[in-house]
């Protein structure tokens, strides 16, 4: 097991629980999609796994070591983190930006060397964005910046990659590019934990799906078992349609027309 979360509970103020008794685990090459409403604690859980926030109860283990007892650079060698978006203040070159992923491998008073640059070039090439290396991160599109952040996380050489809603700000074409990239990385053996707002992504690439609702995991398991009408109604309060579509050769999950939407025939 690469990641083990046992009975994790967290609260910001010590009174209202953000989530409690969460247990998860991830094997090599496994993709876990974390679903759940806005504000239900997905990002908080991710920050706890990264040890940026400290759990009230329970523990997080990465490759058998408890993150609570690890230094930040030790954690960063194991876990690569891709935030939702990056707000660029200084217009770093994409290459220099991704080079920062080498930080956990470089002593504090040192600067990246030849080998680090090669690792970053490999990361760019691995996800097919070598052409972005010399662009400015303030000038590239949202999809490209997402890919550069993935390259930065890969430069960390992590065994676990955590992505916080990697597709939320992207158009449908870029969404699929990012999903395909994630799938390829998983095939190479990296364990992947991603939070997402699209249940359909679970069918696209997940081995496992978990739904966080009201601070607890209401379901966890293979996508086919978890992404059901009942579970999604409980999590999001809407009706969805889940069925096998011949043309795309997979299960899909799309929302039903909620009452009040007129749909096409009246338009």
């Amino acid at each position, binding site marked *: 097991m690469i990641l083990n979360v046992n009975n994790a509970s967290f609260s910001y103020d010590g009174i209202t629980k953000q989530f409690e008794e969460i247990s998860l685990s991830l094997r090599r090459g496994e993709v876990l999609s974390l679903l759940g409403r806005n504000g239900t604690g997905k990002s908080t859980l991710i920050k706890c796994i990264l040890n940026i926030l400290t759990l009230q109860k329970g523990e997080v283990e990465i490759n058998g070591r408890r993150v609570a007892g690890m230094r*930040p650079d030790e954690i960063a060698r194991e876990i690569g983190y891709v935030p939702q978006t*990056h707000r660029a*203040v200084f217009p*770093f*070159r994409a290459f220099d*930006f991704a080079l920062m992923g080498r*930080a956990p491998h470089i002593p*504090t008073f040192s*600067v990246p060397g030849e080998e680090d640059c090669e690792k970053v070039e490999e990361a760019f090439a691995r996800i097919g964005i070598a052409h972005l290396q010399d662009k400015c991160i303030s000038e590239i599109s949202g999809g490209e910046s997402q890919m550069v952040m993935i390259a930065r996380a890969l430069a960390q050489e992590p065994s676990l990659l955590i992505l916080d809603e990697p597709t939320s700000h992207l158009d449908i074409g870029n969404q699929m590019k990012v999903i395909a990239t994630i799938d390829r990385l998983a095939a190479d053996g990296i364990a992947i934990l991603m939070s997402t707002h699209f249940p359909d992504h679970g069918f696209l690439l997940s081995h496992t799906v978990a739904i966080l609702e009201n601070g607890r995991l209401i379901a966890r398991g293979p996508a086919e078992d978890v992404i059901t009408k009942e579970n999604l109604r409980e999590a999001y309060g809407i009706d969805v349609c889940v069925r096998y579509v011949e043309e795309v050769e997979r299960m899909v999950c799309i929302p039903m027309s909620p009452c009040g939407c007129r749909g096409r025939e009246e338009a």
Partner: protein
Amino acid sequence: MTHRKEPIMEIGQEPRNAAIGLLRSVFRDGTPVHEAVLRLIPAEKAIYLLPVALFFFSLFFGRYMMDPVETFRVLIVGTANGFLDGASSLLSAVSGHPVLLPSFEQTWGASEETVVFRIRLPRLIAAMLVGGGLAIAGASFQGLFKNPLVSPDILGVSAGAGFGAAVGILLSGNPMVIQISAFFFGILAVAVTYGIGRAVGKGSTLVLVLGGIIVGSLFSAFISLTKYIADPYDTLPAIVFWLMGSLSTVSNADVIAVAPPILLGALCLYLVRWRINLLAVGEEEARALGVDTKRMTVVLIIASTVITASAVCISGIIGWVGLVVPHIGRMLVGPDFRKLIPVSAILGASFLLVVDDIARTLTAAEIPLGILTSLVGAPFFAYLLTRKKVGWIS
């Protein structure tokens, strides 16, 4: 593979061939020599020659104009003699009987000696230390606070030092007391700001900035208070002039006192320069990339504050350098702090040398530096902004 090496290595790898090729091209296709030279030395490296050239220029340039060659001789032979004297007395002390090493013949008068070694040299070194120090501290703070509009006094160090100096002027007037008091209150102001930041915001940089505003305006009020109760014919003008900044009274002793803290702080910032990049992309991301952000923040604040307080206590308050020089640096080498930190130091030192030259030569009386840095710097910066696109101003 190739792309990173491109700008630096291509030139470094085969300097001889490049030079020969360049010479050939100069003669063949009639490229002007200065362009050829510029192509051989990239701007990024040529910039390191700037303060050296300005230093020698400033040494003979001034109200008391000296012959450049003579100035060189005074500087080099005089320094050598100084070393020999020092060695003689050291050897005498060690061996127990007088040793006299030979020394070079002194071909210049006492006035040249005084101008070079007692007036200009300490002043130039001070200008370089203060200018370079403020610029490097400003650049680090801009990274730490993720904001290109930040200057080194964001946490209240200048207001604190100003108050300290004003109190020193009121109570004693002894330059030594004024400097120590300025340094002490500068550090104290930042300590209070940091205390507020820790107590309220658990070290969040936004709360630190707010704390800086609180402490800054508090000490500004204290400064006004000291001005109000100061003697209008004696201590009040002294306070006002101190606050406008000047290097006219800098002595060798001053330079020896502030050089170690400024250089130590600068060395510290230079060593962590690449890590400042990580703080500049955001605290949470830096944490996820394995940076102990709390400790890093403390290191940057201490180093920058020691530099700024040391600079301010011999020069008075000099604005503008710490804010604008890093911008000019970014225009030249980009936002990567690996290059920005050394380039800021170089540019800051050069900028203050030039401004100080103007301050001491333009009129019969000294012009306060704080006025000139803005008068020279502001139009120059406006010009640069119109010339070059800057990443964070779209």
